[in-house]
């Protein structure tokens, strides 16, 4: 693959924002350090955009997460489509009132009179040595709030298509960017690429085990699917793309076919997205199951700082492999 045909995740985010701003003058960006004067964002996603679209549409904010999300909500009520950057996902917790009590609920509570078409972009993930307050995967928190869409891409091309769709969506979307794979490259999508929200991608069809995931673990699962294929085991790989609303139909159809399911996510194990997926499978495909539904996740603890412990905290590709082998044996 030549460089001309590939882009990194970071380039994908930038491209989606650039395309969205060019296509729609109501698309605005706000967040800490996002202007070119401040270096185009800590992770350089917004580099060049304030120069291209002006400081009014690309606004650097104070370090005030409540004020950032509040301003995004207010501007959206007045017909804008703001995209707020919250530097690290753990900082999103500072703005929970605005997100949970307002962004998620205003369309419903107004009887549909107002809508909150905002996108919140945030970066997270363990494995970067940032310790407990800069690494959490909190997608399940937001998936548990009706009214917010939660989106996590697993390829640069999907990142472009999903972020474009988040910005065009009429409800609040939380778009989660992985900190470890952000420099990883993948094929570039065509111009104006958009993907439907709430729709999972069966990226590899198979007959023996449904492996359901989103975000970073898919990089491991793709490799595992190749090696299992050499053993004659056929994995069906499902990338949820959107954690909430969950594409239950695609999951259930797959498990009815394979009879076995492994769910893998980077977030900690308990009370996570894996639990919801497992519950849906058992409600809708119980009679098809040939083995218990397996969850693979990171450990239920604070993300440690020191590298050895941080790696011990994280789920491993070998955990996913072991879970697949367990289901094949009916365990």
């Amino acid at each position, binding site marked *: 693959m030549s460089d001309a045909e590939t882009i990194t995740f970071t380039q994908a985010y930038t491209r989606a924002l650039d395309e969205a701003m060019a296509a729609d003058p109501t698309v605005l960006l706000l967040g800490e350090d996002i202007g070119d004067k401040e270096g185009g964002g800590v992770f350089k996603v917004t580099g060049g955009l304030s120069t291209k679209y002006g400081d009014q549409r690309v*606004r650097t904010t104070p370090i005030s997460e*409540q004020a950032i999300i509040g301003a995004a909500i207010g501007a*959206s009520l007045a017909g804008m489509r703001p995209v707020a950057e919250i530097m690290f996902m753990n900082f999103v917790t500072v703005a929970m009132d605005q997100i949970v009590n307002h962004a998620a609920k205003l369309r419903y*509570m107004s009887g549909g009179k107002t809508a909150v078409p905002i996108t919140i972009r945030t970066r997270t993930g363990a494995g970067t040595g940032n310790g407990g307050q800069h690494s959490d995967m909190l997608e399940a928190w937001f998936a548990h709030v009706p009214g917010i869409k939660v989106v996590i891409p697993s390829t640069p091309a999907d990142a472009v298509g999903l972020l474009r769709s988040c910005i065009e969506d009429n409800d609040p979307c939380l778009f989660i960017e992985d900190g470890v794979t952000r420099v990883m490259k993948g094929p570039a999508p065509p111009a104006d690429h958009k993907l439907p929200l709430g729709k999972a991608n069966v990226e590899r069809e198979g007959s023996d085990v449904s492996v359901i995931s989103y975000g970073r673990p898919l990089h491991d699962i793709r490799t595992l699917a190749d090696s299992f294929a050499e053993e004659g085991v056929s994995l069906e790989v499902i990338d949820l793309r959107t954690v909430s609303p969950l594409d239950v139909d695609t999951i259930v159809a797959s498990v009815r076919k394979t009879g076995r399911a492994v769910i893998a996510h980077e977030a900690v194990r308990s009370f996570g997205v894996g639990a919801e997926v497992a519950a849906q499978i058992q409600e809708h495909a119980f009679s098809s199951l040939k083995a218990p539904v397996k969850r693979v996740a990171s450990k239920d603890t604070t993300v440690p700082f020191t590298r050895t412990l941080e790696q011990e905290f994280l789920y491993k590709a070998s955990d996913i492999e072991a879970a697949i082998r367990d289901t094949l044996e009916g365990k």
Partner: protein
Amino acid sequence: MIAMHPPTGQEIIAAATGCLLNNEDYLVTIYRGLHDQLAKGMPFKQIVAEYFGRDTGSCKGKGGPMHITYPEAGVMVTTGVVGSGMPIANGLGWASQIKGDKRVTVTSFGDGASNIGAFHEALNMAAVWKLPVIFLCQNNRYGEATTYADATASKTVAERAAAYGDNMVGVSVNGNDPEAMWTAMRDAIDRARAGDGPPLLEANTFRFSGHYFGDPSTYIPKEEMAEALANDPIVKVGADCCGWDCHR
């Protein structure tokens, strides 16, 4: 009128504000917002229907008294969470600034809300960005059942504006005096509309009916309540303006 969180005693503030704002201007208010919503031009029937959870209410009965919305008259948000409307008002102001539509946004809140972090985040951002937002503090002396002095380190809410630099002015007025309130609000709106920066306007008033409907208000000294009732702004306005002998 029975409201869940009655604004009785605070009507002059809303009346002055309502007659100075245009229909297109935005209002963000709070659970104690009946007076604000009416003065901004909301039809009374739709408010009452919403209170009773009817589908003829402004929000089809899905919002209720603490979440009244009526964009047709600029009532964009009513929040039940103390202090959380101000950051949203900034966004409405930011949109107006980008569009150049000359609208202003009034965000109304109580004295208790001035101790929440969102107040300070919002005022700082509004001042840095010179947003066309008027921060209207209806200081009714009590945050739920706690007195202003027991909860607030500054002597007035208005003096907190000094912390946000030259772009913000802080003004404290008698919110129960129609002329003083009207003049202060006119100046605040003019300043915000001209793009000269956000005013923090503290309208001093009193809450006659406690925090919620049926609140026995045992935490309010009898003398304080008696004095406030003796100076009921509605009785005074009725007498001064029309020679009426009004009673609540």
